[in-house]
């Protein structure tokens, strides 16, 4: 330890006064340094976006596109930029009932810089939100949405350069955005769209897709018609998205990714077809299919679940007791009782509604199981995809 003595032990004392001196000398004002990391975080992930409807386009008898622009009067001057494939959560209140829905953005990222998002919404049979939107969303109407969210995006380090996009019905929306992003040079991959529609008359975005395929050689579009009467128009296919059809349009001798977006029934069918192709898991990616209904139809749903359940919910320092149907998710039941809860994807995946289950049991469909491992250990649930099996006591964060 001989040489340690060469160090000065008392220097520390002068360090304290030096430190005090450094503080004394400094300016007594809020620092103002450039911090583009924080600026980017705020620009890309605003807490809310306050928008107005600028245009409504009728795409078919049950499908409309709504153009949304910033509403500076309510504090939104510019739209958050996004990667093609992301969704917006729309916040509405229907007869005192707070409700949210996630819709993929169908416009291109580039258009968001020009101050424009487009949401393309299909009128769902018995759908509460879509009906409400069709009834009330007219030009000038104020709309409140989240920041662009979700993970359904092309990622060049992960995905193959060639992507087969399988769409059903209004599941076309994220792919319209991706195709436009390719045409704009904002994304770089080859997109082959296999788009399932009822018949040639019911194809959404038909002209826009034709135009995109014409002007950009990285984009190919194949329409697949399930209920086409008579002969299939040239270049289109009849039937469903089968393994055979996928193989026909997939590159023969190189890796390709498959992206799927459509209704639950389409996934059930196409997933079985994909199994036949024996693709690596990394090459298959699904967009969430939205809210889950009728848990009792699932094979692993338990027996003799009571029809109605009591839910005691604490949010901050308020406690409410409500009754609900065991066929509704915890989130739906709370909303139906006028209680606003945090909600984004409503499909289990984003975890935004993460809550504490204090007592009782819930059923979570396997396909929507995205909880963290420690959540099981400490009794945490995602109310958007948890269905009560007994009376419940839960602690839910305040809606945001």
């Amino acid at each position, binding site marked *: 330890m001989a040489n340690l003595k060469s160090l000065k032990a008392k220097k*520390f004392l002068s360090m304290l006064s030096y430190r005090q001196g450094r503080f004394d000398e400094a300016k007594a004002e809020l620092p103002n340094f450039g911090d583009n990391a*924080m600026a980017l975080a705020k620009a890309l992930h605003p807490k809310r976006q306050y928008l107005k409807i600028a245009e409504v386009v009728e795409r078919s008898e049950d499908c409309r596109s709504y153009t949304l622009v910033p509403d500076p009067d309510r504090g939104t001057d510019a739209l958050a930029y996004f990667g093609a494939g992301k969704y917006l959560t729309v916040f509405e209140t229907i007869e005192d009932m707070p409700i949210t829905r996630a819709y993929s953005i169908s416009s291109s990222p580039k258009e968001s810089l020009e101050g424009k998002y487009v949401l393309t919404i299909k009128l769902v049979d018995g759908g509460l939100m879509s009906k409400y939107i069709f009834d009330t969303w007219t030009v000038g109407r104020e709309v409140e949405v989240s920041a662009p969210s979700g993970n359904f995006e092309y990622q060049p380090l992960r995905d193959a350069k060639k992507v087969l996009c399988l769409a059903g019905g209004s599941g076309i929306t994220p792919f319209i955005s991706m195709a436009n992003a390719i045409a704009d040079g904002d994304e770089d991959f080859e997109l082959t769209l296999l788009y399932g529609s009822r018949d040639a008359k019911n194809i959404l975005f038909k002209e826009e897709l034709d135009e995109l395929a014409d002007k950009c050689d990285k984009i190919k579009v194949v329409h697949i018609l399930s209920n086409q009467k008579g002969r299939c128009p040239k270049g289109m296919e009849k039937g469903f998205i089968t393994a055979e059809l996928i193989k026909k349009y997939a590159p023969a001798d190189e890796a390709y990714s498959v992206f799927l977006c459509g209704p639950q029934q389409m996934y059930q069918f196409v997933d079985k077809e994909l199994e036949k192709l024996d693709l690596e898991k*990394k090459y298959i990616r699904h967009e969430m299919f939205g809210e889950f209904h009728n848990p009792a139809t699932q094979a692993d749903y338990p027996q003799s679940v009571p029809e109605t359940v009591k839910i005691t919910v604490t949010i901050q320092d308020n406690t409410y007791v409500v009754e609900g149907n065991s066929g509704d998710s915890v989130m739906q039941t709370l909303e139906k009782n006028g209680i606003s809860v945090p909600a984004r994807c409503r499909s289990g995946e984003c975890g935004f509604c993460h809550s504490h289950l204090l007592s009782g049991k819930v059923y979570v469909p396997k396909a929507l199981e995205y909880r963290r491992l420690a959540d099981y250990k400490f009794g945490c649930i995602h109310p958007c995809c948890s269905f009560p099996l007994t009376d419940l006591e839960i602690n839910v964060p305040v809606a945001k």
Partner: protein
Amino acid sequence: MKQYDVIVIGAGNGGLAAAATCAREGLSTLLLERHNIPGGSASSFVRGRFEFEPSLHELAGVGAPDEVGTIEDMFNRFEGDVDWHRHDSTFRLVVPAKEGDTDTFINEDGVEVTVDARMPVGFHNFAKKLEELVPGSYDSCMAAFDLSTRMFKAFDNLENPSKLVGSVKDLPDIMRMVSHTMNEGLDALGMPKKAQDIFNTYWCYLGSPGSQLDFLYYLAMVHSYIKNGTGIPHLRSHEMSLAIDDVIRRNGGDIWYNSEVTKVIMKDGKPAAVVINGEKTVYGKYFICNSSPNAVWADLFDEKDIPAKQLKMLNSRKVACSLTTVYLGMNKTKEELGIKDYSVFIAPDSDSDKQYEAAQDFFSGFCIINCLNEIIPDCTPEGTSQLFLTTMTFGDVMKDVKPQDYKKFKTKVAKDMIETCEKALNISITPYIEEIEIALPPTFARYLNTPFGTPYGYMLEKWDSMIPRTVQYIQDQPFSNFFFCGASQERGDGYGCAYYTGEKAGGIVVKKVKEGK
């Protein structure tokens, strides 16, 4: 009108420990967190069939089975339920050869390097390995560990005055360590430069290079990593954070998530209440704050209410480093990938100050690659593994990036980092990526609300290192009923450091409440 004994702002590691400390002592406690889950950096996220660890590398506070580490001790006292995995190696440092390097060799992976040091646990083993790599370094290395051992003993004895006499002879050396930097200290012990470089590998865990960080703090950190090895929780850091959440609830504390403090209300010159999400006011006697002081003073207070010293502190300190992390879910096992270590530090230069200089720009070739399966074999499904790659930066490295360029920028940085690891370890990663998430400084800024997204607080500089901060802790606090905790305080970055500051702030408040002040 309800008045809490204590309101804790922010449920990061510091805030969690503070709230648990107060709730366990019977104080009416409210913990407020703007996100929907606890932990701040100590969390996890799910992509596909992978659950990723967002920030934790290793905990020195979880040691050997026969010796309870500081973090383990806190969870034991709290009765917080965490399953630990222990890990009995330290780090591997690989410095790939650059053009013009003369002192190079081909390592076991077939890569031309200037340094390849895989260091074992245990003082003697570590020193022996160092001697093997740099002849003539054993004695100085053991001297360093002797010094740190005596220092820890002296600190323990501080709490037991009858034993303190035995440590008095060590006090001058401890003062020397406090007064000098890591480089000066190791020079004084006669450690060869190349051995110092290996010894200094962990500098980035504290974010200050050898010419800045004080010898005492660095040596204390290295000591605690080398002595007993390290540990990590079985279910990612989210398990630790939920365990403390559970402790707080069991002890009657309230936790409100999605509840961001947007304003602090003053009364008689000190904080009296907070406004949550701009709408709800809650009153408290004491406040413990786990948020970044930069955000607190800029966003929560009227400028006239901010003590001048707090603003002066903001203007005289340097914001510490920010991070970029690439999380990879791999569709191959670690064996198939050829990964042999939990933690490899890949550096463009072995010298910590040169690494620091390089980190002033975006990706500089410095990258830590971790493979969680090395410690928790079943942390991913069969046939898969997870990796995370970390690099650090200082300052506004994002300054020229526009929102529309961000995604491409992110991908480019991730690609550079992945390729650096592939080259340095002579392995192939890219073809096997099943899931990828890339967190850049804006990601950390979004989740942590700190300048440049730093998780590290303020740089531990020569004049503002751990001991001066500790000595001055009370004088550095803004009000008699408002105490900061977390990475911005005495000990800088680290889970154990944040827990320590939280428990300490909690302890101060408990004492004050019980004394009825």
